[in-house]
């Protein structure tokens, strides 16, 4: 298949030590970001292309450590630099309280096509109904983010 291959590299801020060997958490995140981006980029338009996505968490005020932002940030970069996304990605997490105290944190990537769920991860437990409510909320919120993407790309290209 002549498709693009995305390589993601994700670096976490030093946090509390994990029981798993170093790098396992990052590898999991990298897989999420890579697979989300590969599904989103129109591969056929970029044959024999390898895209490296390097993400470094600089400041974590809660939600950054969830994949949503890295994936969204990566896509923003991809669009600005002229690759063609098949669909956009938006993200939403349910944070009723400061997220360390939340019972469950759900992260979604929502596609601009039919508002489908592209990526999802969860922490903690939730009921099926809560999941559906969160997806609905994420879909609603994705509209604002897609508008932001459109505005930022328009602003960039109107200067040229």
């Amino acid at each position: 298949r002549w498709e693009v291959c995305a390589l993601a590299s994700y670096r976490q801020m030093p946090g509390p030590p994990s029981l798993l060997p170093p790098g396992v958490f990052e590898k999991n995140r990298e897989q999420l970001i890579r697979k989300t981006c590969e599904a989103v980029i129109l591969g056929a338009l970029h044959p024999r292309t390898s895209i490296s996505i390097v993400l470094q968490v600089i400041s974590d005020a809660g939600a950054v450590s969830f994949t949503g932002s890295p994936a969204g940030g990566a896509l923003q970069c991809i669009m600005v630099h002229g690759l063609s996304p098949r669909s956009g990605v938006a993200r939403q997490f349910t944070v009723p309280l400061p997220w360390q105290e939340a019972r469950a944190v759900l992260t979604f990537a929502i596609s601009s096509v039919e508002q489908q769920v592209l990526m999802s991860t969860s922490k903690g437990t939730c009921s099926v109904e809560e999941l559906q409510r969160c997806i609905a909320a994420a879909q609603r919120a994705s509209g604002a983010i897609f508008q932001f993407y459109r505005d930022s790309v328009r602003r960039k290209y109107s200067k040229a």
Partner: protein
Amino acid sequence: MAAGFKTVEPLEYYRRFLKENCRPDGRELGEFRTTTVNIGSITTADGSALVKLGNTTVICGIKAEFAEPPAESTNKGYIVPNVDLSPLCSSRFRPGPPGEEAQAASQFIADVIENSEIIMKEDLCIANGKLAWVLYCDFICLDYDGNILDACTFALLAALKNVQLPKVTINEETGLAEVDLKQTNPLNIRKHPVATSFVIFDETILIVDPTAEEEDLATGTVTIVMDEEGRLCSVHKPGGSGLTAAKLQDCITRAVTRHKEVKKLIDKVIKSIKPK
């Protein structure tokens, strides 16, 4: 003829079957492969289980050791999972440090343990601030034919049910731990998380329990982990094709029935080894 067609056009070959709502191995789209579980397969481990999903085989061994509890929560023990996908199980893996898939699987299992609270870490504490159990849960894949996450989650649950920890008392005079190997206690398993994986074919068709071949051809995967109360412990969808909320609901409905199947199987196996 069919073999040639399959080699040249594997995707088209699969589509022909999917059109008829079945798969090349004769299963329906929502059907799991035969699940086999053997508990207590490794006698030298503190708990072990071997799980087969069709050809996929995963063995889980649990080793208990002593350790000092973490400084920030002195009444807790540790559970450390590790998934090993060695070259033994499939030619796609190479010798050396664990690859991305193995590491992602380890993290997935760690998340399931954390989210589902299968065991309260407080139960692993022996003496507050002094001594706690560490459970090393090692998974080795013996045969890789897709759906490794479901097999690992099931093996973890079965192996944890098999763990017998010896009674430990702290000698007040010497301050040393004394282990009484004659008196053993099972672990207190609070939840029974069961994973159900799906792959998405051609962005629309959902197939349960994919083989390695199906995983390669598919455009996306979803894994849903559910406990007996119907609460979702994990909704893991690492990218790939999108799913509508309604499709996701279908997956959850299938996961509920899968949980019942697995629970029934494990109860039966546990019961069959009890009378000894």
